[in-house]
């Protein structure tokens, strides 16, 4: 299937500073792709290159399999990090205006907007001045302006900033729903919980650091964990260590609780499955809980960035 967005060897430098150095990845239809990176990594430059605000020095951007064009970029629903609304216009007027700039005729823009206003429960705000609405409400309007023309590709830069938890959840639901209907989403954010909530269900994370190379964090790693298990048991240290034998290493072990339960963190050795360890432990001690620890998106992100930076240092 043709990727909705395809980047190939994208390069951009400002003076002698290389910001994008051969960025290559695809955004398949219906996927939610997270774009992660530390400050200054070039996420904004990458997005602006896709949108045609910045002209890349090299490489190729394909939108829906076609070479980049202004018309193609106009079809993208783009929510930049630095966003705002005209304060001197009513909410409805400017939503129609932005829809027109996306190529919609006024009647179809109004119809589509009415639907979206109802969906996000802001239908009473149509005639309000922007100066009279809250920041969170303005964020909702900006989100509606981004999706009103039913784009095949959404590029969202920090989409949840400014939202309270309830509205953030609603936006996440809408984004997931759009993805389920086939819209591709490229998500750039520093907010790891929101990445977890959005990206967990469908897709993978691209992370790149300081224009070096992209780092893939396969979803299998998120599913299988990193071999770390947490064990809640009753018994003494000696019995526990003895039961582990050569199957796993003991990372840490906590004090005994009032009810005589202790918590240990172990790391499985290569080729050893959790079931093997559990079987061995239950033969000598009483196991209360045996939990597979999945890495948080934040730890994956930090690990990935650290690895890339240490590789870069080593190469240098």
């Amino acid at each position, binding site marked *: 299937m043709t990727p909705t967005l395809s980047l190939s060897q994208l390069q951009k430098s400002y*003076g002698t500073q290389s910001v994008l150095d051969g960025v290559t990845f695809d955004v398949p239809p219906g996927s939610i792709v997270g774009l992660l990176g530390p400050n200054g990594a070039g996420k904004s430059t990458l997005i*602006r290159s896709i949108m045609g*605000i910045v002209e890349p020095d090299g490489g190729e951007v394909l939108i829906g399999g076609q070479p980049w064009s202004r018309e193609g970029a*106009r079809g993208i629903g*783009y929510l*930049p990090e630095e*966003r705002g609304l005209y304060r*001197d216009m009513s909410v409805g007027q400017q939503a129609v205006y932005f829809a*027109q*700039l996306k190529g919609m005729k006024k009647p179809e823009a109004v119809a589509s907007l009415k639907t979206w206003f109802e969906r996000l429960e802001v239908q009473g705000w149509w005639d309000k001045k922007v100066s009279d609405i809250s920041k969170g409400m303005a964020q909702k309007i900006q989100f509606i302006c981004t999706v009103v023309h039913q784009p095949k590709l959404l590029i969202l830069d920090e989409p949840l900033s400014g939202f309270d938890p309830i509205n953030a959840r609603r936006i996440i639901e809408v984004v997931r729903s759009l993805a389920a209907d086939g819209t591709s989403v490229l998500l750039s954010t520093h907010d790891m919980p929101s990445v977890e909530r959005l990206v967990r269900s469908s897709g993978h994370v691209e992370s790149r650091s300081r224009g070096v190379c992209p780092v893939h964090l396969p979803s299998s790693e998120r599913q299988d964990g990193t071999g770390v298990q947490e064990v809640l048991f009753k018994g003494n240290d000696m019995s526990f260590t003895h039961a582990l034998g050569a199957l796993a290493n003991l990372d840490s072990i906590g004090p005994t609780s009032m009810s005589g339960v202790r918590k240990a963190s172990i790391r499985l050795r290569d080729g050893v499955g959790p079931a093997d360890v559990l079987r061995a432990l239950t033969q000598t001690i009483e196991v209360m809980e045996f939990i597979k620890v999945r890495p948080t998106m934040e730890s994956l992100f930090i690990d990935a960035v650290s690895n890339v930076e240490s590789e870069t240092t080593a190469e240098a």
Partner: protein
Amino acid sequence: MNYGLIQAVVSREWRTRVLKPSFLLATLLLPVVSIGFVVGAILLTESAEVNSTVLVEDAPGLISRLDRASGQYVPRCPGCFPERQNLNYHFTREAPADSIWQAEGHTVLVEYDDSILQNQSGYLVYEKSPGASAKRNIERDLSRAMEHARVLESTELNWSAYQALKMDVNLVGRGIEKGQRVKGGGDEIRGSIGFLFSALLLLVLVIYGGVIMRSVVEEKANHVVEVLVAAVRPEELLLGKVVGLGAVAVTQLLAWTILSGLGFSAFQFLFDSGTIGQAATLGSGEVPVDLLTLMAENEGLSHLLDIQWSVMIGGAVAFYIGGYLLYGSLFAAVGSSVQSEQEGQGMILPITAPLMFGYFAAIMAVENPDLPILEWLGWFPLTSPVIMLVRIAGGVALWEVVLSWALLMLTARLTLGLAGRLYRFGVLHDGSRSGWKLLVHWMQGHGK
């Protein structure tokens, strides 16, 4: 160019400004205030004018004589004391005490002796000042009467012969074109008309250029700009903005013209009907004539008919559009590179400098329309809008007008492209640097 998008931008710029209460208020208020000023000034003048009854104590008997029939002293030269609205003259040889002539209803006493013929000086005695205008009229009338007296006394001429000898030379211009003498002159009158067009253009450029700059700065401050440039090419966006704000200017000028016209018509009606002021007359016995006849008969006004009005109006519209596009783009470029309006104000001087230079050259052109430098400034796009309007009024070949305008439009198009490029870079501008160095940096193609 995507004209649908440009139209959307034009519509937004126009609607958000024209449909604002402040715009409606300003548009309605200015004609009301200006008419109010005129009416107020007239009413003030009327109320300030005091009726003066002047007693002239002609002790030496220079300008008055005794009329035996009435027993009153009357002027020797009745024409020297024309009927004036607020002045009423009486003459005497010897005025009574101040309290008495005042009690008789006189408000002003004029007194002098024989020496007035040498030192040309007398006294004006009053309790309440008759006002500067009345004083000037009394002096004028008295001077004329004295002149009359001196003519009779010192020469053998009679008054009408003396009047006939007075000279007031007027030189009428006759130009030479292709070896033939043609009707000429009137350069100053025609130049002044052109200059009026130029001055108005300068005003529009400076005022609305500032509005364009503010609008760009506002979009950056609102953080709307990144969404905009992602959807619309910056050149299209700027063109829409410049045209939209131009449409606002045209709307306001039209509204002012119509409202002022209606207001002054109403005022004229009230004035003519005598409700306000005194009814205007063309003079006793004069028959009203149409404007064109009046202009053709008057040597000065006839030069207005020499102007090629079709070229003048067409040229004015064309150069207004070209000049507005060019300077609008330049103002937009400045707006792209600054973070605040105050910062922008400091950068517009180099932009307005050629405009001001053109303006002063246009003033010179009124007096000396054939200065060689004006021809060059007429070709230079930054000065051509203001210069060419004066040159067109004075008479210039059509091909020169067309070529100058074509150069102007070409430059405006290039400037619009450049301003669009700067506008796009302005999105990335974080405010750490600004000013002309930054603009030059961007022009070289560096985005940050």
